[in-house]
């Protein structure tokens, strides 16, 4: 079943906004997505009608708030097909989730000379926490290289995995849109005796996700890229892995018992959720998940493949060799993230010109500087699409790119 995009657009108040009498063309969902009324209403309802703290308090409102939070956790677990609801840990964002894994699992399991394998297309959130561990513990980092077409080069995978303790790979590149073969890498990692982690920040919002099919031990993603609010992220891990990990932050909620002599940790998921959580945001994320389930993630993926194909075709037909799209050429092998270069116009200047047409794209290094170095560029312009985008948005993008010629096309 295909999506009714005009009906979807109507669910998003931000997309009704006009600037200079013209509509907004929002193509920056890889940075953050817009929010539907369902998410805003869920958070508003909590604050206005059911507001109390959670996991404590015998009064009915407190129980109601706890129910809302538990329901959101169950929704997220169902959305990624987690075998157990208590395997869903709420954090601040994907970055915090990855830092949790690095700090907790890393410090308990890694020592000098131990190997962690990353890829050249990782976001800084999946690089810097491991570099911090390298500084602290003297571990070794290895990098799976990328090919010319922006895919992982797995030809040397066995050598890279030899002796590895942990492998952490993005499921979908936030710059190239590349969908990586997580299952294949996970199987190889396990065969080498390593733990497998996926950064699914760009994956979970856009594709049907089943953690058991992906074969990973842990997976991180964030709420605000999947129609949810900022301030809530998720760490999913197998019960076995999470049980064996020491706590990350200490404080309220994460303890079973505290005496002057020490403490014991609470059960999952509370063990990793110290302090009052971002309750409203978690409830908002639960509503976002239900909204996406209502659309159907198969339909979401189908829509994005078809829109990505349209965008690649349109940009290629209109600009030919003047425009380069980075990453895989086949829409089926990528997500709706199009990093591009237009003539020799700097990405910052492109995005400035596009803004004049209310076309919102991101310009910069996309928190992936090592990838930029491998690609030999300082930055890229990136248009990224989601459920509320359609062909008119792509056409508006193309028109706006063309208008850059008015300023940068002339010979001086």
């Amino acid at each position, binding site marked *: 079943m295909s999506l009714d995009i005009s009906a979807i657009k109507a669910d998003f108040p931000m997309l009704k906004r006009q600037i200079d009498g013209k509509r907004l063309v929002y193509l920056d969902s890889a940075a953050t997505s817009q929010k539907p009324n369902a998410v805003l209403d869920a958070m508003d309802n909590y604050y206005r009608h059911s507001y109390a703290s959670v996991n404590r308090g015998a009064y009915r409102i407190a129980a109601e708030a706890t129910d809302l939070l538990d329901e959101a956790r169950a929704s997220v677990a169902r959305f990624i097909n987690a075998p157990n609801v208590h395997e869903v840990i709420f954090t601040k964002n994907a970055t915090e989730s990855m830092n949790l894994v690095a700090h907790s699992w890393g410090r308990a399991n890694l020592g000098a000379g131990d190997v962690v394998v990353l890829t050249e297309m990782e976001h800084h959130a999946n690089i810097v926490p491991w570099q911090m561990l390298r500084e602290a513990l003297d571990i070794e980092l290895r990098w799976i290289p990328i090919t010319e077409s922006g895919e992982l080069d797995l030809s040397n995978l066995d050598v890279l995995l030899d002796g590895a303790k942990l492998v952490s790979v993005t499921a979908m590149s936030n710059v190239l849109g590349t969908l990586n073969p997580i299952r294949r890498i996970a199987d190889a990692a396990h065969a080498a005796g390593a733990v497998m982690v996926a950064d699914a920040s760009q994956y979970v919002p856009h594709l049907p996700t089943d953690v058991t099919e992906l074969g990973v031990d842990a997976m991180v993603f964030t709420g605000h890229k999947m129609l949810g609010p900022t301030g809530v992220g998720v760490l999913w891990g197998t019960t076995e892995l999470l049980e064996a990990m020491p706590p990350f932050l200490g404080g309220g909620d994460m303890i079973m018992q505290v005496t002057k002599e020490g403490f014991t940790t609470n059960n999952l998921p509370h063990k990793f959720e110290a302090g009052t959580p971002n309750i409203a945001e978690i409830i908002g994320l639960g509503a976002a998940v239900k909204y996406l389930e209502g659309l159907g993630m198969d339909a979401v993926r189908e829509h994005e493949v078809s829109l990505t194909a349209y965008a690649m075709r349109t940009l290629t037909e209109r600009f030919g060799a003047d425009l380069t799209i980075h990453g895989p050429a086949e829409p089926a092998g990528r997500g709706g993230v199009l990093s591009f270069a237009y003539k020799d116009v700097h990405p910052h200047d492109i995005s*400035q010109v596009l803004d004049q047409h209310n076309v919102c794209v991101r310009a910069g290094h996309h928190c992936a500087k090592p990838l930029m170095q491998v690609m030999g560029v300082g930055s890229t312009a990136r248009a990224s699409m989601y459920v509320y985008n359609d062909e008119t948005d792509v056409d508006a993008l193309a028109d706006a790119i063309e208008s850059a010629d008015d*300023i940068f096309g*002339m010979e001086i």
Partner: protein
Amino acid sequence: MAGLEDLYKEIILDHYRNPRNRGELETPPALKAEGFNPLCGDEIVVYLDVDDDGVIQQVATGGQGCSISQSSASMMSAAIKGKTVAEARAITDSFKGMMSIHESGLDKESAGNKLDLSMGDLSALKGVVKFPVRIKCATLSWNTLLQALEDASL
């Protein structure tokens, strides 16, 4: 609303397409500093040959970035070449004053104006203030210049 013509003035695009003093100087004797804009990945390298009298005899700039950061670097190099370190600092103060988004900063007479230093081509960058996100692009090379002077205790 500020139009793009306020930002992309012809003189700016000229400096972007035909940057002045682009290149490298041998270090030492030249001073060298690198500046980064961590938000967008732009990089600027500034080289200075300062003689014993404190006169900037040679300037060179390298790196890569957008039209605003590159043209500003080009204009900066042209504006400080042959000037004393004190004059270069004064021009920098004037320029950064012009880049201030605070109205009071725009009206206030800065040290540079008191010295009656002409902003010349630099005044073309005044429109950048209307695009606050781009101010960092315009000031990157100037902050890198200050860094080079500071590193050498000049």
